Each structure stands twice: as C-alpha cells, then as structure tokens.
C-alpha cells in the first residue's frame, strides 16, 4: 500500500525504523486486522442468511436463533478487537515519539547553536512530534486494515458472486490513484502550511513577549490589524489547500458510494432476470451488498487520517534533518575549522580526519573525538597563561571583530573593560571552544587550544556566562548543574551562601520566572563557585558577573569570591568600578 503514500517512502520507513518494536506493532496490527476482517465477513454472511432465511426461506424465529446468537458473538468480538487495537496503537506511538524526541534533543545538545530559533525548535520537538500521534495511532493501523480487509472481501465476493468482485476491483484502485495524484499536488503546500503555522506561532509569541513594550508606545491595540492580516492570510492559504486536499476525499466517497449503488443495481437486475434465485440467491445478493461498503471503509479512513498525519510527518522530516546534521566536535583539532573549512557537512569529515591524525599521534585510536576520558594531552597546568595571537572572530553577515592580540597572565585577575560589543563574550566562548577564530590562534601556556583535548580544557575551566541557564526545579538543583558528578548538600549550601543566592528550596522555572534578574544572576554565580570548589579549575571566566546587582550585594559577592582568585588565571568582563578594583590588570581594546 505504499503507493498510497505520495510522501517519500523513506520518511515512513525511517520513522518505522526508529520505532523500537515497530515491527511487532505492525505484526499485531496485521493479526488484529485479519481477525477483524474475519468478523466482518462472518457478520455479513450471518446477517444475509438471517434475512434470506426469514424472507425467502420463510423460516421461523426458533430455527434462526442459533444464527442470531452467533451474530451477536461475532459482533461483540469485533468490538473488543477494535478496542485492543486502538489502545495498542496509542501506546506504541507514544514510545516512538519519546524515542524520537530524546534522539533529537541529544543531537541538538551536540550541534552548534548557529542561528537556530530555540522557540521554534522547542515547538517542533514537543508540538511537532506530538502531531505524529495521528500517524501511529490512526493512520498506520488503518493502512494495515486497508490492505487486509479489501483482500478478504474480494476473495469472498469472488467466490460468492464474481461480478461484484469485478466492480470493487475496478473502483478500488481509483481511490489510491487519486489519493496519490492529489497528495502529490498538495504535498509541498502542506509543508508550507506547517511552516506558516510555526511562523504564525512565532509571530504571536513575539508579539506577546513584546506586549509591555507595545503598550508603552500605545501600539498594542493597533496590532489587532496586523493580527487580522496575518490570520486572514493564513485562513486563505489553508482554505485553498483544503479545497484541493478534500478532492481526494471526494473521490474516495464517490467511489465508495457509487460502487455500492452500481453493485445494488447490477445485483438487482440480475435477480429480476433470474440469474440468482431461491434463498441462496438472495443470501448472496445481500452478502455482497453488505460487504461492499466494508471494502471501502478502511480506505476512506486512511484518506481521512492521511491528511491529519501530514503535519506530524512534516515535523518528523525536520527532526530527521536535525539528526542528519554533523555534531560539534568535542575532541581536538580546531585549526581546520579556524581556516574556514568546517562548514556544514564537511566539518564531520574534517573532524574525523583530525581525530585520526590525533589518534596516530597519541597512538590511542580514534576515541579522542567524543570520549571525555581520552586525554591526548594532560589538562591545563596550574594557572596557565592564556594568549591570543592576532585573533580575528567573525559572525556570518557581520563585519569581523578587530584583530586582537592579548596575553592573560597566569595566576592573576584580568578585567576586560572593552566597550560593549567589542567581543568580550566571544572571547570567553572561544576559550571553551564554542567560537573559532577565522584567523590567528589561541594558546594555553605554549600549547595551541586546537591541539588540546577540548573536553579536558572544558573540565579545567569554570565559566559564568552573561545569562546562566535555569531549569525547572529548585535553586539547589540549578546550582548542582555545576559539575557532572553531583555535589554534596553542604557544598551546595556553601556555594549558595557565598553567592548570596536565594534559598536552596526556592523553585525556579526554566524561563527564570520566580526569580528576579539579580537573583538569577546569583544562582548562576553559586553554580560557578560550586564548580570552582569541587573541580578546582585553574582558569575562571566570568562574563558580567555583577551586572544585575546593587553595589552592596556586588561588594559582598566580590568579597566571597576573593579567596577563589588565588593562584588561578581569572578573566572577568565588566565595567563596574568594584570589579575593576580587584583587578591585577585591566585590558581595553
């Protein structure tokens, strides 16, 4: 029945390939489908013979009672089978969805952030993947039924009354044929529809997020017009898509009901002309009449669910696109990317090549690419000197930042006071391997960063970004994100106290609500201090650590931080006088 699917078969196949237990699931569906077909045929035959028996055979109620009981039993069994199938399908679908979501998320954590819309991606992973429900729980089982039931019905008709089988055989293929034609025509438009849905969602989200700003400028009410235009365009696009998409449903319904009509007339004329007589003749006539709609029913359902499942499948394709992207390297050898070769799909190859080169150098095989245990070089020594030599950073579509040569002395505290937008955050991100310079080099002591094992470098660094991440949970749970292996309660409590962070048991939401900006900053700071306490990293990077704090809190936090600065290479980006006061050295460029 793959001819039914205008979408590339490999989407379905990949999706089913992902599904752990998908084969079993389809097997169960097929078995249930065969059983249901048997029930349908048996029910039709019993019904036909009961009517024929009473009308044509003139039999009494008593002699027909066993058949009535059998009919009741068959129909009851059919009801049970339908229930079991639905539940099984939903469960199987849920497992596949979860698996897909996990895979995508795991991959995304390894992919360079680039200019990915985090909001849109989150919507894709939750709403988009959830839309696959229709595919697994409804479309797929019906697809199986659409194969099994018509075959069963046709076989019965062929035996009972071949002309009926002929009518069904001629009309039945029309449905998938038109389904394919119309589906092919609407496919690209359906994808665009999904794109416009997510565009619409983003547009709303943007407006809602900016509502206070809009209101301050008295523009909020005026946005009504913009929303009207957007949603109106969305409606017109949707309707023009549906006008075509519903055509395939029209073909379906017409084929199904017209063939029943043709069949009824054909059988009726045959009966009048004496082609079928007696109780058996009427029974056969009624049997094919009752069975005919059943042959089309699963196909009609497939058609109905096909369009409902399109949204989920479009989302699945996007997820597969994410899964196909090359991950960011966690190993070594960044110079190839630095020379501008590492874009897109080539970076993986480049990564493999450099990892292989590294493997030869260290004689440890190719494990260096991902494994955090693979130490091609020892981690950074005690308080290294960090050197930027003629380093240039660039973002796509923007002018590159000015060339930079900078030495951050070992064991001292350096404060970067360069103007806003001069690339202080980029500098820090480059030290943990998230930005690669387009030219020039970065070195720890005398070793190039690109020659070091990135995992080891990251372990030797504590980094406090400008906006620390928050997850749903308590403050303590958020602070624990400092180190991979977990931390003891007293250690967490100590860090929280030192950073003047909110109480450990306060709850935090992923978007930071429940905490003020200052509190959120101090949670990040507590996490940072915990990491320093537990891992004893020789390099500390702090990006605007006190931007949201008032002068008193700032001083208290800096005092608490003072002992940690000892014997470590500390780099702080800040303009605050209190921070500059603790600097051994100030750098501006």
């Amino acid at each position: 029945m793959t001819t039914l699917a205008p979408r590339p078969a490999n989407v379905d196949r990949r999706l089913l390939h992902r599904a752990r237990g998908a084969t079993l699931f389809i097997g169960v569906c097929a078995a249930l489908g065969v059983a249901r077909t048997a029930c349908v045929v048996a029910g039709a035959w019993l019904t036909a013979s009961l009517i024929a028996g009473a009308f044509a055979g003139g039999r009494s109620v008593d002699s027909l009672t066993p058949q009535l009981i059998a009919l009741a039993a068959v129909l009851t069994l059919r009801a049970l089978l339908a229930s079991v199938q639905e539940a099984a399908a939903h469960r199987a679908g849920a497992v596949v969805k979860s698996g897909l979501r996990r895979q995508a998320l795991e991959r995304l954590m390894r992919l360079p952030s680039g200019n990915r819309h985090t909001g849109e991606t989150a919507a894709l992973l939750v709403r988009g993947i959830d839309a696959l429900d229709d595919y697994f729980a409804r479309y797929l089982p019906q697809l199986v039924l659409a194969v099994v039931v018509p075959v069963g019905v046709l076989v019965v008709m062929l035996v009972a009354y071949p002309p009926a089988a002929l009518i069904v055989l001629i009309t039945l293929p029309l449905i998938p044929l038109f389904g394919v034609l119309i589906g092919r025509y609407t496919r690209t438009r359906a994808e665009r529809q999904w794109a416009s849905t997510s565009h619409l969602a983003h547009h709303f989200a943007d407006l809602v997020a900016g509502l206070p700003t809009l209101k301050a400028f008295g523009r909020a009410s005026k946005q009504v017009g913009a929303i009207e235009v957007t949603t109106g365009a969305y409606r017109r696009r949707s309707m023009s898509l549906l006008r075509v998409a519903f055509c395939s449903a029209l073909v379906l319904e017409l084929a199904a009901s017209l063939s029943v009509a043709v069949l009824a007339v054909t059988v009726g004329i045959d009966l009048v002309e004496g082609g079928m007589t007696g109780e058996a003749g009427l029974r056969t006539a009624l049997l094919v009449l009752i069975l005919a709609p059943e042959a089309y029913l699963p196909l009609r359902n497939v058609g109905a669910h096909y369009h409902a499942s399109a949204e989920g499948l479009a989302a699945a394709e996007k997820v597969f696109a994410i899964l196909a992207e090359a991950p960011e390297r966690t190993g070594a050898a960044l110079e190839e990317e630095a020379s501008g070769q590492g874009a897109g799909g080539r970076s993986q190859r480049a990564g493999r090549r450099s990892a292989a080169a590294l493997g030869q150098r260290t004689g440890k095989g190719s494990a260096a690419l991902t494994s955090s245990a693979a130490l091609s070089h020892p981690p950074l020594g005690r308080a290294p000197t960090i050197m930027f030599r003629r380093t240039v950073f660039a973002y796509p579509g923007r002018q590159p930042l000015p060339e930079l040569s900078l030495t951050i002395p070992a064991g001292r505290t350096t404060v970067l006071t360069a103007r806003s937008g001069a690339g202080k955050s980029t500098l820090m991100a480059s030290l943990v391997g998230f930005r690669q310079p387009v030219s020039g080099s970065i070195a720890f002591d005398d070793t190039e960063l690109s020659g070091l094992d990135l995992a080891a470098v990251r372990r030797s660094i504590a980094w406090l970004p400008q906006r620390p991440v928050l997850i749903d949970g308590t403050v303590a749970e958020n602070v624990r994100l400092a180190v991979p292996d977990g931390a003891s309660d007293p250690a967490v409590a100590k860090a929280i106290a030192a950073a003047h962070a909110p109480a450990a048991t306060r709850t935090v939401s992923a978007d930071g609500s429940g905490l003020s900006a200052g509190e959120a900053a101090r949670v990040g700071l507590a996490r940072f201090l915990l990491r320093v306490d537990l891992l004893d990293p020789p390099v500390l990077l702090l990006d605007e650590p006190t931007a949201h704090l008032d002068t008193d809190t700032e001083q208290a936090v800096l005092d608490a931080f003072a002992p940690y600065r000892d014997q470590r290479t500390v780099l702080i980006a800040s303009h605050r006088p209190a921070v500059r006061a603790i600097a051994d050295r100030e750098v501006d460029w």
Partner: protein
Amino acid sequence: MGRPMVKLRNTIALRLGLGATLGALAQVSALALLAVSGYLISRAWEQPPILYLMVAITSVRLFGISRGVLRYTERLVSHDAAFRGLERLRIAVWRKLVRLAPAGVPVWRTGDLQARLVDDVDGVGDRWLRGALPLASAVIVSVCAVALQTTLLPAAGIILGACLLAAALVGPALATWSSRYAVRATARERGDLTEGVRACLHGREELVAAGTDTAALERVLEGDDRLRRAHARIAWTTGLGEAAGLLALAFALVGALAAGIAAVAAGTLDGVLLAVVALVPLAAFESVLALPAAAQQTAVAKACGRRLLEITQAPEPRPDPVEPMEYEPNPLGGPPFIEIKRLAVTWPGAESPALHGFDLTVQPGERVAVMGPSGSGKSTLAAALMGFLPYEGSLRFGGVELAEYDGDDIRRTVGLCSQDAHVFDTTLAENLRLARPSAADEDLARALRWAGLRDWLDALPDGLRTRLGEHGRAVSGGERGRIALARCLLADREVLVLDEPDAHLDAATAERVLRTAAAALEGKTTIVITHRPLPDGIVDRVVHLRAPVPTPRRDAPDNRLFSVAPPG
C-alpha cells in the same frame, strides 16, 4: 466556554449551521443509499417487471452521488467558518491581554502564554469542527433512522432508538470521563516540556562546557516521560469508547433482526422490508460511532477554553476610569508638573507594597535621578508613572490624579525606556517606527546616533533594514538597551523614564550615551532610575529611595514584567 468572549457574528453561526446541515444530509444520503439498496435487492428477488424497480434504481444512483458531493461542500463550508471564528477569538484574546499587560498577567510564563494563544485558540476551533458538527449531524441522522425504522416496524424503531441513545451517551461519556484528567495533565506537561527544551537549547553552551548537559537533558526528558504516561492514559479510553459504540451496534442489528424475523413470521412486516430493517442500523451507526472522538475533542477544547477564560476573566490591574478626565496636564504644552505624595504601590497578588511613602515633585523640564538599591521599588515607580499599576496616596500630573486619566492618554505623555524592552523579530527600522510610525529614515538614523549607535549602524550591511533576530538575539545586551533608548527618543514623549539606561554598558559608553541623550531630551522632563551614581551633569538632582520596611526578600520584582507576584 467562551460564550462571553466569542461573539460569533451571525455570518459565522450561519456558516456553521449550513455546514452541520450539509453534513447531516450527506449522512442521510448514505442511510438512504443502503436502505433503498436493501429494498431494491429484496424486491428484485421477487422478480417483478423491471419497470417497478425504476424508481428504486434511480434513487440508488442519486444517493450514490449526493453523499460524496454533500460531504465535500460541508467540509469546505465548515472549515471556512471555523477559520473565521478563530480569527475573531484570537483577536478577542489579544485585546484582553492588551488590557492586562504587563502587571495583570499572573505568573504565567511567556512560553506558556504563547502556547495558550495558539494552541488553546486552535483547540476551541477544533471543538466546532470536530465536536459540535459531528454531534449535530449524528443527531439528525439518528432521528431520521429511528423515524424510518419506527414506520417500518415500531419494535425495531424502539430498539434502534435505545441503542443509538446508549451508544451516543456511553461511548462519549467513557471517552470524556477518563481522558479528562490526562488531557489536563498533557497541557501542563507540554508547556513545561516546551519551556524546558527551550531553556536547555538556550543554555546549551554553558551546560556542555560544564559537562552537565546530560544531567539537564535527563531532567527535561522526565517531563517527556510524564507526557508519555499522560498520553498512554488517553489511549485506553479511546479504545473503550469505540468498543462501546460497536457493542451498541451489535445489539441494534441483532435486535432489529430478531424483531424483524418475528414480525415477518407473524405477518406484521412485509418480508421485502426485512432487509431494510436490518440495514438501517448499519448506516445509522456510522455517525454515532464518530461521537467518542468528537467528545474527546470537546473535552480537549473545554480545557483550552477554561485556560482562555483564566486570561479573559483576570481582573485588570488598573482599569481605566469610566469617565476619564480630559487629558490636558499642561495647557501651555510641554511637560506637566509632577507631584507625588505618600505614594504606595502594590503589585497585584503581592502582600506588601513594593513602594511606600514616596514623595517627589518634578518641575517641567527637570532632570531627576531616582537612586536606590535593588528592591527599593524604583521600577515599580516607573510602572506607576506609566499608568500600569494602581496606587495609593497621590500621584498628580498638572494637579490631576493620574488615576483619573485614561491609561493610553498617560502613555502619550510618559515614555519608558525599560531595561528589558523587547526587540521584535523584524527589521531595525520597524523596531524603531513602533515609537513613531511616520518617522522618516533620517529620523531613525538620528535617534540611533543620539543613543550612541552610530558606529553600529554604519557597520550593519543592511543598515536600517537589518533584521533583528529572535528576541533581538543578534544584538548584544548593550545594543538592545540602546535600541530601546533610540526608540524612546524617537517617540519624543514629554516625560521620559529611563530605567537603568547604563546596564550592560561600559562606563565610557554609558556616559557618552547619557550625555547625548540628555542633550536630545532638552526641555523634556527626565526621570532616570538607577542603582549606581550617574556621571556629573546628567541630572539636575538626585533623589534617594530606600527599600520599604520590612525589607522584602525580592530585589527587583518589576524587571520581569510577566512574573508579577514574586514568591515571598
């Protein structure tokens, strides 16, 4: 839900009604097709002259065609109506949000709010399409089928009626009853999961650098697990609902046959009609079997509707006065005289005021700095001046209490440059024109220059047409703040409140920006809110603000406009 807010215009109601009628007619066609076919075959078996069958044959062909065509038109008509209704609903919700923002929205998260707007509104639309319409056509078809059956054989009519009723009640009830809890659970889990995924992706680099990405991921995926379990709960109940319908169909068919066979034997039913009596239940049940799904859609939509109601029924934090004063705080033009006495401002849901016993008088054109530590209510003061919050005590513009004025009138005079002003996902020019739609490109460039962004603008390859990314992501914090400042300068309000204008700026840039801004604001009243001292010569005087006693445990309740009532 939604009756008070979804004021469907008659056209939409009419369209939906037309859709329901067409749908019912399609179903009746299907019923008639099967019934007449049954009659045709039974009658043909008696081998009458073929002329006697011509009416039946023609009807069968007609019903064969009409069903598909009617169904197609029904779909188009009803979908169009639903889309139109959704447009209205979306706008109604937006209008309400406009009145609530920024203080009146409780601790809903923005991610959740957006999910509400899009999902919940769509969910309500589904209720019309997949809830109300199938129900309407099922009722019409059932009535037709029972009427037909009763005419043929009263006993069979009663059985069919009872079975249809049972299927229509038990199936959907089963489906609705047990899925309700799970449906509610999935909505929340979905919101949490979306937010968690977003946060995880946003903070990816920090997590990966710390080696805790896996831990954070597992934490987020716990939410996925909860979502999966909630889905599994719905699974069983959909199956049960369908089974209940099929069981009722079994009863109806067996009952019709039993009654029909007995009637034929007793001679009260013409044997020709026995096939019709048996086939009518089969056709009649088709629409009733669709009801459990319709009921589940309705249940989902109800939960969506309830959450929309939470928004639409939330009290306005500062309702505009019923009869606002004519706004003319300074008849001579220029900034008004501002007089604040014993001002106390409490955020909705908060127990104690964030600002208490505050006095301040500002002459027209004066530049005042309000300085105080975090938590002293500086941003609260700004929100009160903007007419976002109700207050106690006295806050007068030109001698008239601010509470007497319409909020939008106030904001035509007072501008706010907030530390978290939103940068919209559109071009730089569009972002600025928000403040003054009629502004020419030169005006925009001048405002950016005043805000200290001349070099930045010159470096942009696309200039004013540069698109600022998601939530202004392509711009740094300092640039974002200065874009907001440029926007405020462009708006040219008589009174401008600058909330922490130097956050995210280095001292030199901050001083330069403040000085040019001060020059640009010559003659306007400026209130600068800050927690650290400003460079000399920016303001005329400094007012100190102390945290209200007892010190609340929050330090800045107002810099997150959506978390209005901070826990404390």
